């Protein structure tokens, strides 16, 4: 059953020294952020903060120096990522670019794209969004209808609609997954990825979609005869499916997939601190054991990435278990503490509980639903 074995995490003095450095930085940089703001987790958007991270060399950490990277290990990057998440730092302005778009560009971008864009990402100065989902293509990503047609001069004309595009309204670029030949019936064949300049492409309109909390994170992005230059094609025309699966492996692999509720867990511990109640101790012991185990598994995924191995299934397991953990937390907290959830409350516990309860449904949707992940695991077990 080697497919279920997670390689042991690697710890050394370098990663632990880095951890101390990151903690010290965060203690100052986000000192004034309230628990409720911290609960936003990776939705918190602050360009200044991202630039400060870039200035310290904590973005694009594993990339080659010639593209603005720092040639550090996947484990060092892991330390920075988990520390910023655990602290509730506002990472959204660099999150997607650092996690998945940058690595995609590094792999498939033209030399010019790599030279101009990667250093900006590493500086915390370039926001990316993900152009995968559409009105009629969610879990069934291959059903994409958005189309890019090649013109005689080599440029591309794009028509279609992308949906749920997180921070599309702030983004400098999108990596667009769409059809470049054939019809939706051709499924994976004839799909490609294109790089879209979100600030300078006529024919691209971004409309807000408000979520259950009334917040504006995601968007509808409409393309109407939007013209992209010939070199907008990312990687190989027609290889979009393989490329987008590679991108998703990065999207699903990190500790953000079990740390979204960490702020609530911290408030819960704060509220129960020193409690002698057996029920409280047992519930917290269980949560802690789950969290620590998820972290070991997740660092195993980082070890696979570092070794250049395909982390798809391991990442699916961590994301599925992780989302369940994050989503169970609000109800467990409610069962232990006699306080009404209330976003406006002066009690941090009550406010964060209210927030996390409303945020939780998305945890098993975004980045691939629970059902899709379980299908991936079942395939690996040889069942389909």
């Amino acid at each position, binding site marked *: *059953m080697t497919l*279920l*074995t*997670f390689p*042991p995490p690697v710890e050394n003095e370098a990663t632990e020294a880095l*951890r101390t450095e990151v903690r010290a930085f965060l203690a100052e940089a986000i000192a004034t952020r309230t628990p409720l703001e911290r609960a936003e987790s990776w939705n918190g958007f602050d360009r200044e903060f991202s630039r400060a991270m870039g200035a310290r060399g904590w973005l694009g950490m594993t990339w080659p120096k010639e593209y603005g990277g720092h040639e550090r290990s996947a484990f060092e990057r892991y330390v920075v990522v*988990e520390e910023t998440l*655990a*602290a509730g730092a506002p990472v959204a302005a660099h999150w997607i670019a650092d996690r998945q778009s940058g690595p995609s560009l590094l792999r498939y971008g033209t030399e010019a794209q790599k030279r101009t864009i990667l250093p900006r990402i590493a500086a915390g100065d370039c926001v990316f969004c993900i152009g995968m989902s559409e009105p009629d293509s969610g879990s069934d990503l291959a059903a994409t209808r958005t189309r890019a047609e090649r013109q005689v001069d080599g440029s591309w004309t794009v028509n279609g609609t992308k949906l749920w595009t997180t921070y599309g309204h702030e983004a400098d670029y999108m990596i667009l997954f769409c059809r470049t030949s054939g019809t939706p019936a051709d499924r994976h064949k004839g799909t490609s990825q294109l790089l879209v300049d979100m600030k300078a492409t006529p024919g691209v309109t971004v409309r807000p979609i408000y979520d259950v909390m009334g917040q504006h994170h995601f968007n509808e992005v409409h393309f109407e005869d939007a013209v992209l230059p010939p070199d907008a094609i990312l990687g190989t025309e027609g290889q979009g499916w393989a490329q987008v699966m590679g991108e998703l492996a990065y999207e699903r692999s990190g500790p953000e997939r079990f740390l979204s509720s*960490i702020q609530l*867990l*911290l*408030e819960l*511990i*704060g509220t*129960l*601190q*020193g*409690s002698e109640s*057996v029920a*409280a*101790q*047992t*519930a*917290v*012991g*269980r949560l*802690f*054991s*789950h*969290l*620590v*185990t*998820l*972290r*070991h*598994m997740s660092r*195993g995924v980082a070890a696979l990435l570092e070794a250049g191995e395909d982390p798809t299934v391991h990442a699916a*397991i961590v994301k*599925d*278990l992780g989302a369940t953990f994050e989503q169970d937390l609000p109800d467990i907290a409610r069962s232990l503490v006699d306080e009404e959830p209330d976003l406006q409350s002066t009690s941090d516990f009550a406010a964060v509980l209210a927030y996390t309860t409303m945020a939780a449904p998305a945890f098993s949707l975004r980045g691939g639903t629970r*059902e899709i*992940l*379980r*299908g991936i*695991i*079942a395939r690996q*077990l*040889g*069942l*389909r």
Partner: protein
Amino acid sequence: MDDISSILYESAQRLLGDLSERVLAGQALTDKDRADGWRRIEEMGLPVALVSEEAGGFGFSDADAFGLVRICGRHIVAWPLVETMLANRFAVENGSEPLEGPVETLGELTPEQREAAALTRAVQMAGALDAILAMTISHVQERQQFGRALAKFQAVQHSLAILASEVAAGQAAADHAVARRAQGGDGATLAIGIARARIGEACSKAAAIAHQLHGAIGYAQEHRLHLYTTSLWKWRDEFGTQAWWTQQVGREVLASGRDAFWPMVTAA
């Protein structure tokens, strides 16, 4: 792991696999089979596997010795082999000779011994989870209903995905506790508590799903599944119940408090 351990793993796997096949669930062994089987186990030296080399053991590192325990968990046999391994280790640590096996119960244990036994059980559970997962996968691939293998039904696929994920998590927790103990230092007790809390829960979920997917045949004494599930239901509460271990972890977390919480996670 060096060559010698991997050869030994292989032979142990073969012997225990063979002996395990013969424990036809629900049927008592004849006295002769019982004596012969234990003799073969002794000939391989397995009862002293956890004992130091000077005292007649293999001189395994702790991690390699636990590898052998995991194999024991995978192949449930009619003899209390792991109990005997532990009894011999404790006897030798106390300056006595290894015992005449098989040893059925361990009696009073010191706190350190109990901790070692608790971790050993966790690793044995990890092995039994390997077996339960493998059994359940082959069952749903072989058993046909509605004209197709059960494995082709999405509800079945998703149950198995949950089973596999629980197995992976339980095993990761046990593996980590083994590594922490090998490192020495004071993190081992907490890691063992975490392992027992997490793998105990994995066992509950895995056993439930395995029984559900096996249908009635898995509930029959003649089927081997219950050898594993009934063992897990016992083991998860031995050498400290799952409730006790989980509470120990929680007590430590709550005593340390909010500000120490995340550093405690990264140090665990």
